[in-house]
């Protein structure tokens, strides 16, 4: 992977100036390269990793992983039905997988009721959906390489030869 991407993947807020310092390139060429990545869709967007479990708010969202069995369509394959599903704003991720079912989707909602409604009213009635199995998410331990634990204490002694 390009070094600039390697740095940005760890810290999206780092400035072009800082990247230039770290990689010994000039700022203009770093900026140009980032623009190019953005244009080509290699960089899609810059995200913040939030540990939702620590937020105390009334409108916390809950999530469910849903296994979806579908009937693939002649000439359209899975892509057509996947598109029908992932366009719902409730769906935050959608994958085609191998194994006993076809699509694995992640759905987000205010509460269990909202998610059940989505499944009952939107997902299941779709013509090509044969069946669904829903797993409500209980606790997140690690997401996108980040272990969701508040502050790992430093175990090194502060000074040594």
């Amino acid at each position, binding site marked *: 992977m390009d*070094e600039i991407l390697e740095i940005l993947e760890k810290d999206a807020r780092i400035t072009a100036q800082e990247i230039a*310092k*770290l990689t*010994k390139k000039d700022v203009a060429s770093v900026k140009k390269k980032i623009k190019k990545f953005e244009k080509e869709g290699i960089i899609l967007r810059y995200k913040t990793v939030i540990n939702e479990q620590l937020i105390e708010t009334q409108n916390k969202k809950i999530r469910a992983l849903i296994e979806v069995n579908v009937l693939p369509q002649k000439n359209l394959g899975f892509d057509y039905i996947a598109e029908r599903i992932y366009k719902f704003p409730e769906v935050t991720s959608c994958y085609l997988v191998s194994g006993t079912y076809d699509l694995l989707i992640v759905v987000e909602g205010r509460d269990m009721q909202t998610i059940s409604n989505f499944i009952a009213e939107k997902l299941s009635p779709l013509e090509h959906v044969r069946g669904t199995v829903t797993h409500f998410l209980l606790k997140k331990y690690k997401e996108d390489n980040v272990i969701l634990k508040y502050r790992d204490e430093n175990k*090194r*002694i*502060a*000074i*040594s*030869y």
Partner: protein
Amino acid sequence: MKKRKNIDFVSKCVEKMAPSGIRAFFDLVLGMKDVISLGVGEPDFVTPWNIRETAIFSLEQGYTSYTSNKGLYKLRLYLERFLKERFELVYCPENEILITVGVSEALDLAVRAIVNPGEEIIVPQPSYVSYGPIVELAQGKPISLPTTEKENFKINPEKLAKLCSAKTKGIILNYPSNPTGISYTRKELEAINKVCQRYNLLVITDEVYGELTYEGRHIPFPALAGAKERTIYLNGFSKAYAMTGWRLGYACGPKELIAAMTKIHQYTMLCAPIISQLAACEALQAGRRDVESMRREYKRRRDFMLDGLNALGLACVKPQGAFYLFASIGKFSLNSLEFANRLLKEEKVAVIPGVAFGKGYDKFIRISYASNYMQLKEAIERMGRFCRKLKLS
């Protein structure tokens, strides 16, 4: 007969090795909160999980006994393969490799195995803190070979030759170096090797930072023509695999010397801990992918710190490896311990006074960049404030 006080029981040699003001400085750092420490001599991440997991599994399986004095045969076999593939170094796992408790023990064994009382060992300076004392404990005489900032802290072969006499038994090399991060090209090493051969020196080479080389390829000393037969090569798992606390190193060399070292090792240490040895097997089998990304990360930090420090007037010779910068404080009127003390108290940044690494280095500080980028950035800011204040006063 006069009654001995407790202090009278301490041997002359040990008493002489008095800790300097640096011990007090260390205690001060350890007692302070919210310090950004650039004084750490170990990697800033924990041992990769697969290695830790292997150790846990081995405990569950009941691997809790001694191993052979030389170390697990399996580990020596993996090391043989690693050294061959990585450096084209050929050592026989039966009698040319010894597993030790860290490189520190390996170094102690090597020195004790070769030194008769009064014989001289050349120690290039600035050097890691233990080299001199280890020679003294073996009743040898450490002979300093100072290197200067002008020489880029590299050994000058002519100066080396001038220090050699019939009493000189060997030399301790360390590259990439702690505290300077300096390493050598093949040509430079060959020039050193030539002098060593001319004066019949045994070379003890501590290459524990070898995997952390950012410019060029690391050339192990025994890979030079004619050097292997008179070199004890030391390496370990601490830096490359972030395994400092596991205390595991190894020595490779001619079988007569490894046999001599094994004799001391069997009476003093018996063997290295089996759990660490099993973990090291996993490190060698699976580990290299982690090493590569870590190396790139350190290189970026080095470049960032090098620019930052030079801009503050703390000039550094550009290091080729390890994770240290040896910065000059020649522009300020403080000595290294005063500088470190005030920097700690006034800006809460910890660095190591250069005087710890040799008498002539009181105008330098050692800065470790084994910390994350956010901390390094903050440290540079604080040091900037400190340096501006010093100039004004």
